């Protein structure tokens, strides 16, 4: 029996190759993402582990990203260094200064930092064995006005020793001359590094020589990191996290420090991992259909052969096992090749990272044991699951099939079971979606949406064959009129085996349903944001950093000094810890605005107004959020700012806006700029709303503003249209991802259509011979197959898009609960996808049609 299985596997290798490709693709994405993230994690773990000091003392960080939100850097007294240095077991202690809120600009006003989102880090130059860089040319910075630059950045931006740079730091802007170049001895994580003399770094970067961002200590031989941490903790107060004066300190050993640094990188890695796994998921989902279809067809084709095996005494289990063994062989081959392809994919990703400035060495690729295990589990699992139903069907072949002159099995079988299962699952799914559309709470709506999407997808796949007849009747209805008998035959051929047509189209359907849903959701998001911008934004211009992080205060000065500028309203953000009357503690971020808010932003108030909200010690809040937490106008809420500063704010206004949650902030809190400055004095502006003065036209002001802001390449002047475009571009990133998924789904779906057509051509060899004998030309024959392919592909596309539209509308309902109320259906995209699917059909038919038209007429007629 095994021999027969192996023979059969080898005999059908051509057909199985297409299925194997589906397995390879999905395994490659799984393996590639695992290898990539393992490699990056490993590289950075080593980097962090090798560069972390034995013990690091830091201000307690409530929110690691607080600096990115507020522009304010948390500090500790530099004098702490001396106390740490006196601790028994400390060999050396340093007051570190390292900030990421400075912008470095060259003499031609170009930003020196990376444009890819990696930070620019300005820091004090300490020479230790743990330093990730080594001075390779020039000398160390001495005193103010001197700096070292890392070699990668210098190379990229064509900077040399002697060049002058402008550093826009939070306290002030200053100039430095590059006096030396430092080269990474470890992996360069893509950041730009600027080193200053430790003697001046605190004053230049933090505004005071008495401040530092952390204290690092090295242990003498024989003292463990943990022991040293304990001793320093004891010296500074009562152990780790001791409270001293205004701040609270975090103490970390080298290991802990490396781990927390790696954790902050983890979020970025997770994004890449999830994207890759998304691709793997789509490849798997679509691949399953391909495999099911291939095995179903192989078995249908071999009905007589299987019948003969049964007649010769093979029992059902043996037949089933034989088919499953074939599937496992396929899975084994596919997984192995997929693993190889995954390594290639990881290599490509590493190269791509290098292009973004992150120098990972491809030779240090890490392949953990989990990678091959996942690859084989995925590959074998998928083929096994996909082949199980066809295997059962094979086992059900009766010995009589060997003798019967039956046509291909499975054609005439009623689809009753499918109708019932599809109907029931579809009804439950539709009910879930309807529930989602009617739901009033986001969490409930989202879970109903997920359930509805899954169930309706299953229902459509199961009931797909039932839809083949009605839909293709309509789709191909014009074929006889348009293409004559060729069109009629292609339409009927597509209807011939609804199961097969349905399964073939399902692959395309799944992909397009996802795309349809996502494109409706993203179009709706764009439309909603447009509507909100139109409704809420009153300012002529918005000045903002390209990556939304805060910018130096000089920008505001420059803007305000520009002739023709009427009103400038700055916005600052701050992480905020709020204790609400109902006992809940909410970690959110609040905005702070300068006076004149009503002239640049239109806010709808339920109670109170802007003047009250921005008054000293006051706070505004979303009315819905306030209601659900028992807050009323006049309520006093205790809040905590970064750096541990506490105060009580009085709620003075309640807002009634469409959206309450923007950029992860909950509650829609905002307060006066004066209030924030009291508790977080060194925060930076993140947005400037600018109005032209009366008598100045906005379009005249714009070039002046741009000229004034030329020394600040990081900020941009945008009017309302630009701002909309910016939002669209951000949503477009999501769409590009969707299109990439679509591409993958299409590749696999094309394989499926090719597979089905190739088999149909073989099955209909005699018919094709007969047609050719009675006068069907080669070109007509090719057209017949092409039209069949197009009709299958368009069928899949229409089913998928219809499903996707329903999903998209439901997704929009969920978004509407978050204030994104506009519904937009991207009809051009949808029409383009339908047309594209017809092209997919034509492409898929190329080879099978060529093969059919090349058939020898006589041999085809004699074919059995």
């Amino acid at each position: 029996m095994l021999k027969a299985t192996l023979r059969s596997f080898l005999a059908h290798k051509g057909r199985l190759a297409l299925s194997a490709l589906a397995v390879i693709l999905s395994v490659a994405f799984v393996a590639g993402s695992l290898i990539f993230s393992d490699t990056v994690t490993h590289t950075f773990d080593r980097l962090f582990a090798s560069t972390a000091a034995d013990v690091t003392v830091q201000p307690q960080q409530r929110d690691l990203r607080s600096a990115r939100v507020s522009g304010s850097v948390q500090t500790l007294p530099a004098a702490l260094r001396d106390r740490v240095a006196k601790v028994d077991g400390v060999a050396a202690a340093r007051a570190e200064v390292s900030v990421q809120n400075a912008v470095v600009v060259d003499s031609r006003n170009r930003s020196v930092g990376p444009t890819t989102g990696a930070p620019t880090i300005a820091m004090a130059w300490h020479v230790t064995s743990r330093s990730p860089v080594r001075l390779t040319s020039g000398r160390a910075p001495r005193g103010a006005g001197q700096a070292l630059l890392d070699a990668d950045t210098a190379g990229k931006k064509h900077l040399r020793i002697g060049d002058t740079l402008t550093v826009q730091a939070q306290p002030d802007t200053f100039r430095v001359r590059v006096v030396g170049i430092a080269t990474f001895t470890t992996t360069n994580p893509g950041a730009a590094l600027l080193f200053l003399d430790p003697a001046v770094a605190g004053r230049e970067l933090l505004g005071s020589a008495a401040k530092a961002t952390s204290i690092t200590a090295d242990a003498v031989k024989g003292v463990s990191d943990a022991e040293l941490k304990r001793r320093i903790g004891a010296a500074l107060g009562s152990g780790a996290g001791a409270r001293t004066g205004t701040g609270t300190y975090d103490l970390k050993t080298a290991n802990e420090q490396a781990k927390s640094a790696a954790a902050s990188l983890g979020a970025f890695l997770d994004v890449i991992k999830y994207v890759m796994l998304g691709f793997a998921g789509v490849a798997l989902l679509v691949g399953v259909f391909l495999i099911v279809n291939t095995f179903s067809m192989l078995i249908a084709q071999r009905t007589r052969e299987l019948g003969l095996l049964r007649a010769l005494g093979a029992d059902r289990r043996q037949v089933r096992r034989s088919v499953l063994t074939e599937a496992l062989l396929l899975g084994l081959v596919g997984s192995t090749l997929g693993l190889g392809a995954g390594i290639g994919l990881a290599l490509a990703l590493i190269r791509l990272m290098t292009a973004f400035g992150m120098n990972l060495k491809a030779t240090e690729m890490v392949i953990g044991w989990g990678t091959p295990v996942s690859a084989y589990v995925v590959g074998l699992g998928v083929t096994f699951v996909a082949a199980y139903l066809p295997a059962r069907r094979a086992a059900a072949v009766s010995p009589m099939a060997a003798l019967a002159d039956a046509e291909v099995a499975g054609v005439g079988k009623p689809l009753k079971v499918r109708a019932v299962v599809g109907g029931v699952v579809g009804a439950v799914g539709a009910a879930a979606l309807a529930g989602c559309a009617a739901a009033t709470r986001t969490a409930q709506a989202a879970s109903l949406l997920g359930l509805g999407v899954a169930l309706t997808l299953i229902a459509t796949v199961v009931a797909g064959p039932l839809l083949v007849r009605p839909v293709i009747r309509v789709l191909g209805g014009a074929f006889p009129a348009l293409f004559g008998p060729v069109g009629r035959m292609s339409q009927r051929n597509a209807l011939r085996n609804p199961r097969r047509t349905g399964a073939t189209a399902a692959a395309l359907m799944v992909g397009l349903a996802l795309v349809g849903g996502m494109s409706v959701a993203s179009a709706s998001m764009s439309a909603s944001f447009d509507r909100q911008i139109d409704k809420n934004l009153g300012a002529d211009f918005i000045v903002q950093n390209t990556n939304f992080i805060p910018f130096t205060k000089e920008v505001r000065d420059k803007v305000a000094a520009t002739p023709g500028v009427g009103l400038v309203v700055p916005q600052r953000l701050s992480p905020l810890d709020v204790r609400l009357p109902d006992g809940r503690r909410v970690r959110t971020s609040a905005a702070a605005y300068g006076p004149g808010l009503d002239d640049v932003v239109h806010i709808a108030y339920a109670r109170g107004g802007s003047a009250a909200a921005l008054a000293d010690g006051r706070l505004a809040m979303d009315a819905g959020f306030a209601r659900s937490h028992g807050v009323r106008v006049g309520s006093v809420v205790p809040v905590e700012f970064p750096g541990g500063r506490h105060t009580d704010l009085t709620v003075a206004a309640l807002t009634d806006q469409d959206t309450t949650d923007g950029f992860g902030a909950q509650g829609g809190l905002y307060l006066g700029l004066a209030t924030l400055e009291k508790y977080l004095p060194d925060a930076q502006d993140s947005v400037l709303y600018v109005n032209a003065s009366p008598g100045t036209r906005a379009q005249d002001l714009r070039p002046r503003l741009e000229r004034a802001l030329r020394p600040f390449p990081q900020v941009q002047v945008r009017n309302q249209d630009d701002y909309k475009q910016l939002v669209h571009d951000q949503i477009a990133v999501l769409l590009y991802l969707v299109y990439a998924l679509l591409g993958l789904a299409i590749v696999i779906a094309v394989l499926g259509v090719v597979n089905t057509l190739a088999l149909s051509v073989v099955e209909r060899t005699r018919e094709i011979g007969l047609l050719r004998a009675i006068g069907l030309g080669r070109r007509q024959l090719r057209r017949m197959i092409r039209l069949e392919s197009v009709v299958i592909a368009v069928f899949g596309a229409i089913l998928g898009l219809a499903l996707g539209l329903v999903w998209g509308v439901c997704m929009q309902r969920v978004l509407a609960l978050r204030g994104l109320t506009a519904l937009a259906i991207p009809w051009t995209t949808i029409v383009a996808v339908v047309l594209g699917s017809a092209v997919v059909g034509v492409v898929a038919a190329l080879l099978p049609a060529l093969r059919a038209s090349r058939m020898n007429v006589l041999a085809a007629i004699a074919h059995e």
Partner: protein
Amino acid sequence: MSTPAAQHTPDGAVAARARGLTKAYGSGETAVIALDSVDVDIARGRFTAVMGPSGSGKSTLMHCLAGLDTVSAGQVWLGGTEITGLRDRELTRLRRDRVGFMFQSFNLIPTLTAAENITLPMDIAGRRPDERWLKQVIDTLGLRDRLRHRPAQLSGGQQQRVACARALASRPELIFADEPTGNLDSRAGREVLGFLRGAVDDLGQTVVMVTHDPGAAAHSDVVLFLADGHIEDAMERPTAEAVLEHMHLSTGGHPQTPWFDAVRGRLGDDDTDLEE
């Protein structure tokens, strides 16, 4: 080799003609000669049967005359057109417009109704069928109430009648029938042969039929006997007995070959492969 059929043409008109028709499969030492310089004239308006043992080249002769197969040497004319040397597209058009076909089995496209099958060659050509002629053919073959049926809903005899109607529908110059009764029981077979006979007598068509059945051959006007790639003999106004006797003589008294032929046909032991 003489051209036995030519001298029997009543009005001298020839529907198809071959001169020095040679067909070899393979090449060099292993070449098999299926037809060896055959000269033949198919008379217009008559019913010609081609008989011969398995491997005698009778089907090859028909395929070459019908433009289904290429020839190794010699010339073939259909009416006044020389078809040897025509390209695939021209041959396809010729088959579509000027030749009718009936095969032993699998004659119809399963997805099309009987009516659609009948008019298929004309539909492919984009020509409108001659409605009066079509009506006459359909009525003659008794298919009026079967027109909307799919092949699967028809009996074997009915299917062959539809095939016959298709072959007649475009009023071709020549109808080739390859063992048209091979898969039918004797009653249905006789019926189909009767229709072919009628097509010649009443509708003025020209029919060439390849068969191994003396009873079927007896319906024809003239029987051509093929053996080893040669036309050995011709028999005018054949009867079943005369044909059988002729076969006895040429195969040494044992009419086995046709029987073998029939068995071969049913078992389908050709070297065909489902997978290619």
